[in-house]
């Protein structure tokens, strides 16, 4: 299994700085999401709000494998991807509260956010639609002769959409430099993967289209990064698409209004206690003497400050001016 070999190979080679950075990034996402949940509870965030808590290792590991100019697109569970690719937490949080200082000036919301500067192409609200869009980003790079790769993230639920397979076929046929990242968090809203997919390993569905792929322990940031580097090298070498199926888990409900009756409290608790991606790195940092408790506390404090500042910004940034209703419908 790729998962196992990646695991055994990685530990000696990782630097303290790298581990600390992974810890920092994952913690930022977790604390940011907890704060978003809190603001939602206070009525400051409206509509749908899908939290990424539990899945942090996936985006942090893959962003560590990406280079400048590589592109990414994902679904509506997008806050983690935006923070991991370097977007400003203030701009993301202010978009969640629908304010002028948000990435889309308050007009997109949690599910629809973009950053041209960071090559983040959404935040897409229609399940599965980001998959051909991601292949389209890769199409543009190939057409223009750039050696960039694109990451198209989607869930185990989206993996059952027809357009995913239409895209697999064309991406393979045209050898597009796109990495299909299946974030298999075990539940498509309230439907477990066993109840929706005949094949438990979704990455194997790429084989019929000639796309290589593998399952990865998505709770282990180093395994994710190692698999990401392999996939990036494959795409960058012009060998066409690659599939990474991240076996991961979301701790929170599908969205804020999910009563989560489809799984037991024990199942979630067990995952948190035994597999948590942040705790794993924290243990590595402490047992490997890469960092002291005090250094980790200092990181926690920094992150808390960043997140609190983003919440403050998101609360105080004004609502968009009413004439914003009429802008950005057409480009000149």
């Amino acid at each position, binding site marked *: 299994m790729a998962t196992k070999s990646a695991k055994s190979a990685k530990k000696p080679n990782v630097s303290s700085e790298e581990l600390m950075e992974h810890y920092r990034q994952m913690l930022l996402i977790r604390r940011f999401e907890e704060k978003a949940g809190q603001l939602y*509870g206070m009525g400051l965030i409206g509509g749908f709000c899908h939290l990424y808590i539990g899945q942090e290792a996936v985006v942090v590991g893959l962003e560590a494998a990406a280079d400048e100019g590589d592109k990414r697109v994902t679904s509506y569970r997008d806050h983690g991807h935006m923070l991991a690719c370097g977007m400003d937490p203030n701009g993301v949080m202010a978009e969640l509260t629908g304010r002028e200082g948000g990435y889309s000036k308050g007009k997109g919301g949690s599910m629809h956010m973009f950053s041209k500067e960071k090559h983040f192409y959404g935040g897409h609200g229609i399940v599965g639609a980001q998959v051909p869009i991601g*292949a389209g980003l890769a199409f543009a790079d190939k057409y223009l002769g750039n050696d960039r790769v694109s990451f198209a993230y989607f869930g185990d639920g989206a993996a059952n959409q027809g357009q995913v397979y239409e895209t697999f076929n064309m991406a393979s046929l045209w050898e597009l430099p796109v990495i299909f990242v299946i974030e298999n968090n075990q539940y498509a809203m309230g439907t477990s993967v066993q109840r929706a997919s005949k094949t438990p390993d979704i990455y194997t569905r790429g084989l019929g289209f000639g796309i290589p792929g593998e399952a990865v322990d998505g709770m282990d940031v180093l395994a994710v990064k190692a698999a990401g580097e392999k996939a990036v090298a494959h795409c960058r070498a012009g060998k066409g698409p690659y599939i990474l199926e991240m076996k991961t888990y979301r701790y929170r*409900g599908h969205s804020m209004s999910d009563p989560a009756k489809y799984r037991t409290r024990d199942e979630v608790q067990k995952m948190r206690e035994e597999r948590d991606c942040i705790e794993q790195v924290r243990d590595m940092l402490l047992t490997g003497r890469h960092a002291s408790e005090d250094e980790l506390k200092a990181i926690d404090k920094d992150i808390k400050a960043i997140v609190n500042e983003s919440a403050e910004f998101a609360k105080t940034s004004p609502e968009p001016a009413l004439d914003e209703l009429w802008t950005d419908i*057409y480009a000149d």
Partner: protein
Amino acid sequence: MATEILMPALSPTMEEGTLAKWLVKEGDTVASGDIIAEIETDKATMEFEAIDEGVVGKLLIAEGTEGVKVNTPIAIIGEAGEDMSAPAEPAATAPAAAEAPAAAPATAAAPAAPVVDSSPDYPEGTPMKTQTVREAIRDAMAEEMRRDDTVYLMGEEVAEYQGAYKVSQGMLDEFGARRVIDTPITEHGFAGIATGSSFAGLRPIVEFMTFNFAMQAIDHIINSAAKTLYMSGGQMGAPMVFRGPNGAAARVGAQHSQDYAAWYASIPGLKVVMPYSAADAKGLMKTAIRDNNPVIFLENEILYGKSSEVPDMDDFTIPFGKARTWRTGSDATIVSWGIGMTYALEAAEKLAEEGIECDVIDLRTLRPIDYDAVIASVQKTNRCVIVEEGFPVGSLANHMASAIMERAFDYLDAPVLSLTGKDVPMPYAANLEKFALITTDEVVAGVKQIAYR
């Protein structure tokens, strides 16, 4: 420092809820993520988690309490040993409601006087050549592809087969397989790929073998291409063209014969073009390819082979939102576009023989629409019919009738008539198909009806 825990909103519509059960008691230590209460919302019973670690100081609302408003303090959490009997730090409150938009003025302003752009599409004396609509579209695409390397053509049978309707004839030879791309039969997928490529700097032309098949792709046309500029606050959009034959051809039945003009014209973020003549097809296609927005370009299989005069000049473009007046008369206005112009012009010819002279206006683009040209004409003729191939309910003809009523009500001497296709799926039988479509005779009868002749 002690903080208040507030009654959370746990769904987009929740305003109050029942505090069904406390899962902690005063004095308990909680960590971030611990479930502290069960709350019944309007939809379901939800678990409520602690955000910060601390000690539960006081439970302010007893379990079982119904109708607890969102943002009411329900508990106090603080550090161990802290005195939490004092009022806690006030928690942030929900934002004030958005400033109400200014009320609409009580008295309606007088409708604006129409401003008509009647400038010619090309300079007088320009040499002309006779071309089919098919050739005009091909030339427009080829000229723009020579001009801009980011423009490419993608679709089923566009390359080696030379186009299902031969519109892209010769383009593979000139531009090669990098820029003229045959796709598998997979409209949803390739519309999405093309849209993604437009976000990243390319300017795709997507050919649908017919717009009937674009229904498989309509999610990308609308949700991905048309809305992204707005949703991204202007950061990125989809400069691209979706084109292909639209509407009825001949005897191809219900699934291959629908006119989608009204559907696409209802979407903010799209531009919609439906040319009738070869010159308009050429000039509008060049404008569409250069436009920085997604453009729906509705062609027609019956019109592909029709020849007409096209200006023979280097860079012939026609701006969107500018109608063309094909003939003038003072007795009635006939408004149409695309294939509907065939019936409009034939009817005007017949009516002229009977002494009824009509303005015949070709809208050419359906988003934006040149309302002013229509209003100015109606102010002159005081009567109007609108001719459309598509279904009657929710039609563009209905929309135009409403616009005329709003801006030229006082000028009307008769009701505005919507002359559309019948409210039935397209039948196959030759006689029924003919009966389902709008005909020249129906347009003649309609104009006579409103002219009281």
